[in-house]
């Protein structure tokens, strides 16, 4: 047996998001299967919502299979573990489809490990979310809108699933980039890993929270049904697809209760006001969290501290003012002044300010150049002519500069 170390919460979160993405893809396929079964054969073995939400539990055996392939060296033992995981999947998702997919997945993982021996580390699609995964939801959405009677329950789930998948992808990609950078530079001395994580991690978190706060309530409350009318073939020409945002006749409107797995036959009726309060609270909590994160972030930026070898100082308003004053000492010519002298002065100012800190007010051009560390002899000569010379700069001077 081989030991696995998942050293940081960041790595653990990445793994968890990876497994969740696969579970979401599997879950939506389960939902489609059961909805189609109902649509075609009027056979309701399990509601699509239940299939979807229970399908999300598929993340657990997916994660366990990852651990198994990493830890178990013997293939026979891994096969036994695969059988166990298939059984667990059946139990969690509530139908043998879970077991089947899990078994196939374990076989693919085994093959990947053989390939890893020859080609090096391989990133498995089971553990790596990609925005291309959204295509699955889009295709199923089109399918639900295009079939003869429409599959409104599947359509609702594809919209919700797509939003959830987008959030998972955003979180995963952001964290992955951060993790890759920090892992690549982990041996670098004085790397401000905590501060990088603080800023870039907060940005990812804010993006995820913002996406969730804006899209999730809409996806959950999505009650319409889009229907695509397939064009009827006529000899004279073709008609385009016409999207329709009308509820399907004869189909009930979506309710919050429909989202929950239907374990027994007696339906649980939750009053709509409870749903509103629930989602209102979640929204308020998300917004409060976002607000607190932003405040915390900015509070940290406004203090001075020492971190390893770094002395980090917040530039106070006085220092900002002082810098602005210094910048103003290198006065910019009037914006409408397009004479050669003004162009030269503008260019000189830009060269000095680009090089670094603005020079002190009392400095001569030469001193200012030395202070900021630039060597621009041609520009220096022309600037002195433009700024202090008796003669005006000419187009010739400008041409010389170019």
């Amino acid at each position, binding site marked *: 047996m081989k030991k696995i170390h998942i050293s940081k919460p960041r790595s653990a979160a990445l793994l968890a998001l990876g497994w969740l993405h696969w579970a979401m893809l599997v879950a939506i396929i389960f939902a489609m299967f059961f909805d189609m079964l109902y649509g075609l054969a009027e056979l309701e073995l399990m509601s699509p919502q239940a299939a979807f939400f229970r399908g999300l539990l598929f993340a657990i055996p997916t994660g366990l299979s990852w651990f198994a392939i990493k830890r178990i060296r013997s293939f026979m033992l891994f096969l036994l573990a695969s059988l166990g995981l298939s059984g667990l999947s059946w139990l969690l998702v509530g139908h043998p489809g879970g077991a089947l997919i899990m078994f196939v997945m374990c076989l693919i993982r085994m093959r990947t490990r053989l390939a890893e021996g020859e080609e090096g580390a391989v990133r498995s699609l089971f553990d790596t979310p990609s925005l291309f995964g959204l295509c699955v939801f889009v295709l199923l959405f089109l399918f639900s809108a295009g079939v003869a009677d429409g599959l409104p329950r599947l359509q609702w789930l594809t919209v919700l699933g797509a939003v959830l998948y987008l959030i998972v992808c955003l979180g995963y990609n952001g964290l992955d980039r951060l993790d890759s950078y920090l892992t690549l*530079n982990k041996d670098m001395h004085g790397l401000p890993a905590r501060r*990088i994580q603080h800023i*870039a991690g907060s*940005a990812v978190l804010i993006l995820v929270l913002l*996406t969730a706060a804006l899209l999730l309530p809409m996806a959950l409350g*999505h009650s319409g049904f889009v229907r695509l009318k397939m064009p009827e073939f006529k000899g004279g020409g073709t008609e385009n697809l016409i999207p329709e*945002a009308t509820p399907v006749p004869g189909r009930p409107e979506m309710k919050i209760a429909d989202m929950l797995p239907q374990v027994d036959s007696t339906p649980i009726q939750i009053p709509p006001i409870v749903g509103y309060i629930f989602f209102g609270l979640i929204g308020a909590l998300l917004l409060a969290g976002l607000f607190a994160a932003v405040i915390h972030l900015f509070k940290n930026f406004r203090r001075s501290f020492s971190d390893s070898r770094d002395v980090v100082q917040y530039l106070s308003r006085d220092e900002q003012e002082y810098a602005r004053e210094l910048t103003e000492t290198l006065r910019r010519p009037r914006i409408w002044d397009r004479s050669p002298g003004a162009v030269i002065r503008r260019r000189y100012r830009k060269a000095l300010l680009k090089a670094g800190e603005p020079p002190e007010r009392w400095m001569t051009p030469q001193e200012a150049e030395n202070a900021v560390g630039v060597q621009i002899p041609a520009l220096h000569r022309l600037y002195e002519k433009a700024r202090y010379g008796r003669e005006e700069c000419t187009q010739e001077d400008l041409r010389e500069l170019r």
Partner: protein
Amino acid sequence: MLIPILITAGVLLLLFTLLRWLYDRFWERGLSCRISFMGEYAVEDETSDLSEVIVNRKLLPLPVLEISFHMDRRLHFSSEENSSLSDQTYRRDVFTAGPRQKITRTLPFKCAGRGYFRINEAGLTAQDLFLTRKYVSHMPQNTEFYVLPRTVPAHQIQIPYARIMGEVLSRRRVCDDPFEFGGLREYSRGDPMKYINWKATARAGRLLINIHESTLSQRVIIAVDMERGSDFLNEYAVRICCTLSERLLSEGIELDLYSNGTDIQTGEPWRMEGVSGSGSLLAVKKKLACLQSGQGLAPVCSRLPAPGDDLVVLISRSQRDDIGRDLSELVGRSRGLRVIPCSLGTTEEQREKVLLFKNTDTIWMEF
């Protein structure tokens, strides 16, 4: 209900694009980077510090800001962290610059070899908030540092120094200046009558004579041979020159320094003429820090002017006869001194092989 979701997703995408645009446009605004040596100079084997100051005056934070620059490999950062070594040391440091922040990092380094070092430019690589894009730029820098040669231990330099001082003093005695009063002493047989101080004699009741100082210019020409071969011995030649200069300047002797090596600052043949007084010592050491060896250099004696009565000291690791011959021809009727730094274990037989000349003394110094 689908359309609002798509619109909201579009708005999110737009916000993301806007943020990217902001970074594309303004990442460099209000950002400055200053790399500077904390001191102006240090002696070989001492440690000094380099400071990196990053100022971000804008509101956009830069989660990753990499500063890279080249340094000479003779400056060793502690345990060579964040450095890759080739002909030069390439150093890369990562910073995180929040909004309106100033970050100062101090890096200690050890001066492993003599030289003049300069940082002209620093590379900047920043990344946006989500680490999706890289922005590359560079900023001019203007910082320089001298690593001065260390001095040779007193017991090693004593022999050449004593020999030089002996030569200088003997010339002093020969050429007294009658207008330069140095003191009184009792008359002894053989003293010229013209030096008797009659007033002092009358006051003291015994014969006293004036002592005169020499106003003859006490000048020594030191030449350092930097022909490439053994860098180790060339470095010792520079150290010997530095130590002799220090001692001779403190004795008030004027120095002319020459070498066939080049000055790293100007790229021209290295020389320093008319140096006098202890106050010039730092300038001499800085100049010596800029001396570099090279291939195919002209013979060192060809760089020297006609010495006249001045004492010429040649420091060269080379044991070739032509160098001794050149020195002998250069000094002519006067006398010269040839100092040969050699590695430990140089045998007498090897030393005897070196051709000796009547008008030059040869001193071997083992290191």
